[in-house]
């Protein structure tokens, strides 16, 4: 019996540090471990004793790629605990800030992290030497997403303007109008991105995913909605922990989520699109139709097209919000002056998928317990399943080619390992 082990010590072009170890005996994958060796940072522990007001800025530091997602989930969870509702223009401005992060994060992944895999380059900088136009367009789109976050949040990484109840200062009509021309240009760039992505060549692979995302009656999901799946889950976000649970594998510094009694599941663009394509705005729907994108995409490589469609959606929504904007009277809803001990939970849609926060507060508004479930913790088991299927079907490849294929299968899901620990090293062992 021939045994092989393949090791990838450091998976490149993902956010954070991880490794993959695969042990193959003959034609069977005996063991497959997506190892996250990003060192633990213990956010849930040091949040204890902090004021509810501090959670948005502190949890933003879990991830420099999607700080807005952390700020949004933290705010909504605190508002749930405090019995506050944030309506109207303030709610809309939160969506606008989140659109900035979706545009930036998706453009980063499509052009700088994912496109080199399809076109045969080690990175976007080397890709840019031969295809400068594509990379320049990607960078421009990314920059416009960042500009939107600067206008609303002060800066793109760890914005300073988000607080429980709303914002410190809301933008003026002129401040938002000033970014409109850039967003109009972004619409063209985003549509070109979808055409570019759909022109790439994809392996013919379909996975049988349980897709899980938020779903909202009136809009493509972002800050609010119910948790739904293509296999019958339909629950309020506060019941998330009744249906999904985190487990801890010995080889990893990250916790992994499973759907209790069902196993792995997938969050992120493929899940959101499969469950909410009927809620896309007209231009996003029209570009998806133009490139022949099916309503449910089960080929993980084609997620690059879905991310493109979500950029169109985010740009379209941003334009819509800016055109209808009237500054609210107050930049935030005042939190209650007195508290009673309470618990609040919320989920919002980070670019990589659902991000769950739950906090228990005491009567002084101090955090007694915090629980954070990041998108990559939820996807980790499902990514392992994708890689296991790939390896089983690709045993004839030599170790170098197989390692390369495994890394690509992982990058399909834009894993953010910084989030998941709150990294990848590939280790294929053939025995």
């Amino acid at each position: 019996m021939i045994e092989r082990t393949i090791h990838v010590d450091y998976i490149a072009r993902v956010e954070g540090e991880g490794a993959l170890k695969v042990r193959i005996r003959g034609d069977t994958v005996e063991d497959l471990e997506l190892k996250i060796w990003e060192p633990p940072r213990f956010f849930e522990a040091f949040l204890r004793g902090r004021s509810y007001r501090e959670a948005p800025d502190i949890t933003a530091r879990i991830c420099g790629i999607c700080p807005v997602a952390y700020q949004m989930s933290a705010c909504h969870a605190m508002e749930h605990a405090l019995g506050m509702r944030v309506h109207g223009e303030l709610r809309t401005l939160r969506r606008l800030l989140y659109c900035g992060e979706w545009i930036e994060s998706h453009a980063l992944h499509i052009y700088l992290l994912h496109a080199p895999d399809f076109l045969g380059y080690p990175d976007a900088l080397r890709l840019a030497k031969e295809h400068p136009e594509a990379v320049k367009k990607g960078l421009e789109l990314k920059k416009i997403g960042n500009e939107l976050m600067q206008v609303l949040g002060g800066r793109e990484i760890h914005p300073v303007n988000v607080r429980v109840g709303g914002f410190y200062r809301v933008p003026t009509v002129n401040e938002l109008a000033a970014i409109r021309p850039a967003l109009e240009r972004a619409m063209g760039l985003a549509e070109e991105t979808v055409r570019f992505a759909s022109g790439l060549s994809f392996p013919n692979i379909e996975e049988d995913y349980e897709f899980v995302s938020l779903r909202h009656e009136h809009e493509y999901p972002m800050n609010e909605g119910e948790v739904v799946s293509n296999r019958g889950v339909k629950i309020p976000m506060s019941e998330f922990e009744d249906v999904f649970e985190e487990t801890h594998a010995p080889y990893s510094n990250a916790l992994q989520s499973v759907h209790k009694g069902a196993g792995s599941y997938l969050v992120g663009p493929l899940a959101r699109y499969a469950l909410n394509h009927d809620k896309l705005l007209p231009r996003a729907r029209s570009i998806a139709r133009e490139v022949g994108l099916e309503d449910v995409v089960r080929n993980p490589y084609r997620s690059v097209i879905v991310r493109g469609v979500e950029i169109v959606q985010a740009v379209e929504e941003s334009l819509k919000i800016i055109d209808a904007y009237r500054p609210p009277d107050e930049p935030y809803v005042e939190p209650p002056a007195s508290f009673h001990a309470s618990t609040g939970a919320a989920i919002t849609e980070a670019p990589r998928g659902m991000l769950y926060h739950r906090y228990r507060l005491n009567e002084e508004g101090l955090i007694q317990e915090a629980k954070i479930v990041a998108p990559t913790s939820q996807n980790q088991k499902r990514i392992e399943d994708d890689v296991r299927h790939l390896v089983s079907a690709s045993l004839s490849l030599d170790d170098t080619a197989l390692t390369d294929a495994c890394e690509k299968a992982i990058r399909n899901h834009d894993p953010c390992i910084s989030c998941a620990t709150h990294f990848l090293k590939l280790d294929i062992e053939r025995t």
Partner: protein
Amino acid sequence: MPVHKPRVAVWKFASCDGCQLTMLDCEDALLAIADKVEIANFREASSAVVEGPYDLSLVEGSVTTPEDVRRVKEVRAESRVLVTIGACATAGGIQALRNFADVDEYRRLVYAQPQYIETLATSTPIADHVPVDFELRGCPISKAQLLEVISAYLTNRAPNVPNESVCIECKRRGNVCVLVAHGTPCLGPVTQAGCGAICPAFHRGCYGCFGPQGSPNVPSMLKELGELGMAPLPMYRVFRTFNAMAPAFRSAADSAVSEEDAP
């Protein structure tokens, strides 16, 4: 003599990846930088790795595991110039809050199987382990300062990164002083400039994410915050967050509360 483009490497220790993302966020300058230097080792952005030595290493993150202690020495040995980028690499980051707590308890609180987690009891800046040529501040760092540091080291000059306070930057920006005019507690007077005074521009007090300025008057700051009605515990917490191990902020937090009231 063979001429090669300067080799730049980007390294990661415990961090959120935001400071290395700042490099990719230099959208207009990124391709120009890639033209002038060889990005020889930047795992977040590239699968291609060129072996050291490197002319300039940018190091993100703090040292939190036994493996990191070994790796940071390797990085130093391979680097002609080593610049730390951001609050984690420069002051231990927010994860340095464990330094004031019991890390075994932290491990048990977060992980179901704490025995799987290998970690040090402390999160420490890179300079605690190896000599550092320059420390770039911020949580996250500023794009303009990052470009200045890269340009400076590639042309063999000292980086122009002033250690003045946020107040100076705030005046230059033309902000109304939130502390004086609105009575909003603000750490601007004791915090190093570089962010662009964004918090006051958004009607918010500075929360110190760039760490202490060159000559901070901490007692006066604490007195002012107290007069504005900030209670001791919130005052303690604001200094003990993103740059908790920076000496001036560490002592500010300790001075804000009496020993028996310290959490």
